[in-house]
């Protein structure tokens, strides 16, 4: 009963005209960046992070969340029609989705992808409503040791899932922690690594770092290649899947939804891992696995459902524990912090309007996406023809304006340009920026909880292994750290490794 009252309260918040507008802007921009290859949700969210300053916390966070799940929807359009993933979670959709389009079945592929995304998104939201308050009540009992170990696990999982060498990913995570610690020490108020610059006393801002590493670096990387687009030009008809399509897709959609939701909750996991896992599962379960790669609708339905369910599931650790499980959620945490809010176990009880409002807006956003993605497919196809030589300079311009507006400080523009150049060379040398950004956000929390646990336990390090939740987290982290040394696990890691920045 309480849940229903809360949901009704949430819809009251989400249906306020201003929040509806922000929700629409979020899902529209999300679909747009999902459709356009080369710009992912991380770049778009980092670009728009300063915009959240102008409105209420609800509006800003509703918009940011809309960009995330909107991009999951939009990404499939480009994958199916152009064979270029609009964002990383849609890589798998290219395999069978584009084959279906080539066989003249672009309509059903787009249709099942949109319906699958909607159904999975709805399931994830219902699960979020039911699971989050319960988990939050458990999380109240978490102490600094549990938080520290959970954050360590989150960072290790992300480094485990990052493409390329794990040593490089771990090095990036360490650099992220160090960057996060620049500025005044929260306990002793001593300035750290500020090099005498007043601008660094408050630390380096999240906005310039993320915009540089993802926005500017992404543009620099894209300018290296001539982006070729092989758009399916045939008229797209019959978007509604047939009865046979539904029959073939129902199982993969259901399995993808559940798998995606749980993978989304796990720290370090997310939509990309979920879509790959779902594709592998469906191929393994299929009686005719040879159809996969040749236009099997199951290969579109499963992963698309999985990535949307994961996008919903990823909100659980952020909302209940205050720990972002991936970079996108780290950006969302940034939006909360900008407004002076700290997501965590107490947020649901202390700020129910915000929590339930965001959840309800996500449901409304899912409905909006269904409307945006099916009848307006022609418009999105036209957008795919937008010339990149005009788009890229404008993205650079918007990042500069965005960074300046977030702090009214030219120094931050310099920081962004520096991180853009660093990010470009990092990517060229095979160092992924995702662990750095997550560690940058978690760094201060990680340090705070480590120091608190040591003070509370009077320097007893066994506090991390005698507390059950902390011990389990650390055990998993150790297994994942040692794992790549074992050939079997190394092979598995290479299979699921992801490029979060894509």
């Amino acid at each position: 009963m309480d849940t229903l009252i809360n949901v009704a309260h949430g819809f009251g918040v989400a249906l306020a005209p201003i929040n509806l507008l922000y929700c629409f802007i979020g899902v529209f921009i999300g679909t747009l960046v999902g459709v356009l290859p080369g710009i992912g949700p991380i770049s778009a969210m980092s670009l728009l992070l300063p915009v959240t300053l102008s409105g209420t916390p609800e509006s800003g966070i509703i918009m940011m969340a809309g960009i995330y799940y909107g991009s999951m929807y939009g990404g499939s359009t480009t994958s199916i029609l152009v064979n270029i993933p609009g964002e990383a979670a849609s890589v798998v959709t290219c395999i069978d989705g584009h084959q279906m389009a080539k066989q003249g079945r672009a309509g059903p592929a787009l249709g099942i992808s949109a319906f699958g995304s909607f159904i999975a998104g709805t399931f994830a939201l219902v699960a979020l409503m039911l699971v989050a308050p319960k988990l939050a009540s458990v999380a109240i009992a978490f102490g600094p040791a549990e938080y520290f170990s959970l954050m360590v696990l989150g960072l290790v999982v992300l480094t485990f899932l990052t493409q390329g060498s794990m040593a490089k990913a771990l090095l990036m995570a360490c650099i992220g922690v160090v960057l996060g610690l620049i500025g005044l020490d929260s306990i002793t108020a001593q300035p750290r690594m500020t090099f005498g610059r007043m601008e660094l006393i408050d630390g380096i801002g999240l906005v310039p770092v993320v915009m540089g590493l993802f926005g500017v670096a992404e543009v620099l990387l894209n300018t290296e290649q001539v982006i070729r687009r092989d758009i399916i030009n045939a008229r797209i008809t019959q978007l509604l899947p047939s009865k046979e399509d539904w029959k073939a897709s129902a199982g993969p959609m259901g399995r993808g939804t559940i798998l995606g939701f749980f993978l989304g909750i796990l720290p370090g996991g997310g939509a990309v891992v979920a879509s790959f896992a779902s594709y592998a599962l469906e191929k393994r379960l299929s009686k005719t696995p040879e159809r996969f790669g040749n236009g099997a609708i199951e290969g579109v339905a499963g992963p698309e459902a999985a990535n949307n369910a994961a996008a919903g599931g990823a909100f659980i650790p952020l909302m209940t524990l205050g720990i972002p499980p991936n970079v996108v959620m780290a950006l969302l945490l940034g939006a909360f912090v900008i407004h002076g809010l700290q997501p965590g176990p107490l947020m649901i009880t202390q700020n129910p309007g915000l929590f339930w409002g965001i959840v309800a807006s996500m449901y409304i956003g899912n409905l909006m996406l269904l409307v945006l993605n099916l009848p307006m497919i022609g418009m999105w196809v036209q957008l795919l023809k937008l010339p990149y030589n005009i788009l890229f300079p404008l993205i650079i311009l918007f990042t500069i304006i965005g960074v300046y507006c977030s702090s009214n400080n030219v120094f931050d523009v310099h920081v962004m340009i520096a991180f853009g150049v660093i990010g470009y060379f990092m990517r060229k040398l095979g160092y992924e920026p995702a662990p750095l950004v997550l560690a940058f956000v978690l760094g201060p929390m990680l340090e705070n909880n480590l120091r608190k646990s040591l003070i509370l336990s009077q320097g007893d390090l066994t506090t991390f292994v005698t507390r059950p939740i902390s011990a389990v987290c650390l055990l998993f982290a150790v297994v994942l750290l040692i794992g790549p040394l074992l050939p079997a696990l190394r092979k598995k890691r290479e299979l699921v490794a992801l490029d979060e920045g894509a």
Partner: protein
Amino acid sequence: MDDSSNVKFRLNNSELWGGLIGLGLGIFVIRSGLKLKLGTINDPGSGYVLFYTGILMCVFAATIIVAALTEGGPTFGSRWQNARWTKPAIVIACLIVFAFALDTFGFLLSSIPLTLLLMRLIDPVRWEIAIPVSIIVPAGMWWLLKRALGIQLPSGMFEIG
């Protein structure tokens, strides 16, 4: 990757340099941690986490260096093979010049040339499109921010904007 692009004991082994930079940063972080005082395990000081993070950085960087020396690694040239490296180099140069110009000349006088240059230099946009877009978009954004949101972008020494 062919043999010529995978080298071990060579100065152009990009993996080796990546590891060395990581090692240098790690040593710097350890020194910074020590300067800030480590404190004790009962009461960790400001440099405690930095010091141990620095040590971890050195360990991971050393792993990268060892792997680069034993397994080899791609050369710098192979990293940019088949890539139009001049394009990002031009964008980086433009951005560096812009970073210095922004404070001195202000937003409008620095962003209009930047946009125009990027449009002409990445994949040349026709002049008749590039000129109006590079004037209208920065000026439009400046107007919107100043009038609608009350945000003052840098006006520079000429006080334009």
